[in-house]
């Protein structure tokens, strides 16, 4: 065990997998010599060389398009998109090609590829260094979408993603990169994709979230405790596949639900969670399903801390549902 930041856990997962399997290759903008602008790939260039830790020309579509070819040939590419906000030039390659390759070729070709990308706010990055674009990808059959919220899960989920036979969008909460430390095994281990984790068990209300919103929900839960409200915090960890059973069981138990995400509220993935609850557990509900989310505006600069859900706002939603 080592006490690592989330960033170090990612780095460790990449290193372990590259040592274990020579088919694993990282590529992207500044990932080689520079070790990535966040340093997620630091040291890989020195250990594995320029052929496996590849600085590419500046084209996201090229990075993903080339990775698809590599994966079709049998490699395990792990492309990095420097910020999730810059994934859009590669959108066509991701949704039209990577997502559909297995299906459209009757399984002849597959794209075992992990697109790593830092997402979310909290670093004063404004419009284009703060976005949470999970909803686009979770609505695209053929892709998996995985979002860790702590160093242990980050390493274990990333290793699972690299070993997965399908394309995975692996979203890294950049706000937690260095601010969150945790015990992480030094050897390799996996955390299964598709299983939510009950980060905090509770009986009064369920709060569903993922990624950088988890610490905020835990803070809100603490506050709620002071008001004698026992909150269950469910860390979804993977949006596709989604652990619907755990969601429904939690709602059956608590009868109340709040969904938290930092992307713009309208059409965000939290809407899907609410819709599933309204579909499958309506008879257990004792109040509305509230969503605490980003605003329906582009991500701002000066007012970023107001834009983003915080524990106060989550707590207020909890109170509202409880008092309904």
């Amino acid at each position: 065990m080592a006490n690592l930041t989330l960033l170090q856990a990612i780095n460790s997962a990449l290193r372990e997998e590259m040592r274990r399997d020579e088919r694993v290759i990282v590529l992207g903008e500044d990932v080689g010599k520079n070790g990535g602008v966040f340093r997620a790939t630091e040291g890989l260039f020195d250990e594995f060389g320029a052929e496996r830790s590849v600085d590419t020309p500046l084209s996201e579509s090229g990075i993903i398009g080339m990775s698809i070819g590599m994966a079709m040939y049998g490699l395990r590419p792990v492309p990095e998109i420097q910020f999730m906000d810059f994934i859009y030039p590669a959108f066509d390659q991701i949704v039209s090609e990577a997502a559909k390759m297995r299906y459209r070729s009757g399984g002849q070709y597959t794209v075992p590829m992990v697109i790593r990308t830092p997402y979310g706010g909290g670093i004063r990055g404004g419009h284009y260094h703060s976005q949470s674009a999970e909803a686009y990808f979770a609505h695209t059959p053929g892709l998996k979408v995985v979002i860790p919220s702590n160093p242990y899960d980050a390493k274990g989920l990333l290793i699972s993603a690299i070993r997965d036979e399908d394309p995975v969008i692996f979203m890294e909460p950049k706000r937690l990169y260095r601010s969150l430390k945790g015990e992480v095994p030094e050897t390799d281990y996996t955390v299964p994709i598709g299983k939510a984790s009950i980060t905090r068990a509770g009986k009064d209300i369920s709060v569903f979230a993922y990624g950088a919103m988890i610490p905020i929900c835990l803070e809100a839960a603490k506050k709620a405790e002071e008001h004698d409200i026992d909150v269950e915090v469910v860390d979804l960890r993977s949006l596709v596949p989604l652990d619907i059973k755990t969601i429904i069981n939690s709602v059956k138990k608590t009868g109340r639900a709040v969904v938290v995400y930092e992307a713009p509220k309208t059409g965000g993935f939290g809407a899907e969670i609410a819709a599933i609850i309204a579909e499958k557990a309506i008879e257990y509900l004792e109040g509305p399903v509230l969503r605490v989310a980003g605003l329906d505006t582009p991500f701002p600069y000066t007012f970023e801390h107001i834009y983003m859900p915080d524990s106060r706002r989550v707590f207020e939603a909890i109170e509202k549902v409880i008092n309904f």
Partner: protein
Amino acid sequence: MSSEIIQVLKEDGTVSPLFKKETDLTEQDLKKIYETMILTRVYEERSLKLQRSGRIGFYIGCKGQEASHIGSAYALKMDDWVFPAYREPGVLFLRGIALKTMICQMMGNAGDPTMGRQMPCHYSYKEGNNGSVSSPLATQIPHAVGIAYAAKYMKHKIVSLTYFGEGSTSEGDFHTGLNFAAVFKSPVVFICQNNQWAISVPVARQTVSESIAIKAKAYGMPGIKVDGNDVLAMYQVTKDAVERARNGDGPTLIESFTYRLGSHSSSDDAARYRPEGELESWEQKDPIIRFEKYLLSENILTPESIKKIKDDAEEEFTQAVKEAEKVGLPPLETLFTGVYKDMPESLREQMEDLINEQKRLGASEDNSMAFPL
């Protein structure tokens, strides 16, 4: 250099003596190429008939471009890879696919290895290292580069070749694909089938560069313009490029200057936009007629053997259709399988609901309309 056009086989059917002396193509090879061209032409004529009689939903063809893709693909080894667009059925024939399989693909039935999931002419053929055709244009170009990078990394001495239309050179993926290949010195051959049209848009509206070939300069790779209706030139130029690639000398862009003798697809009518006389003038340059003249003049083929080749192709197609039409629909489960390696729970639920519904209520009514273009 880039705007010169390379030709070996003249329109009158004669061949430059130098080529004859130096070519490695045997009589056997020439016959094989010719037979594949004929099969491809027959495939087109007959498929269009199937489409018109409603037995397949759509067809997109390559009449006039047989030399362009068959000549070039013949320069590959079997373990090389091909990423076609949609006008290259001849590549599949060369790589040994069964005609019946292709027809089943067009019919979208259970004989289609991709289980009726895609429109007609969107083949996948892994056994032949032939990529999976998709509709979005130019997307296959970076894939070809990735394959080449991977192969080089794994020290496999293979080459990856990709086809695309001149219209597709306007897409970002053309740019990015060629640039990545050049930067990584990957073993890729890029073949642009400049058939003068992108549906109704002429090449002059696509680019005002001197040629397509000259675009290679933007990436620091050689660019060569070839008479795409000259099957021998296509072979030779591609062979040279493949060799360069295999020897570690990097990618090449080949512009095959050719013409789409048909409409864009079974849903299009080129008469709406094609200038008068253009089709007729290009029909004079039909790559099959030109090659035939040569083969006849060299006594490699005779009028009789030509007739037999054509008859055989027709017969083969007739038989394959018969076989294909016996095949039923894919199992309903295939609508749900293969989205992922393992089916997610939520999709399994959708599958069970739907299968139950179809059992309860009978099959859904198929009231889809015909494809419009």
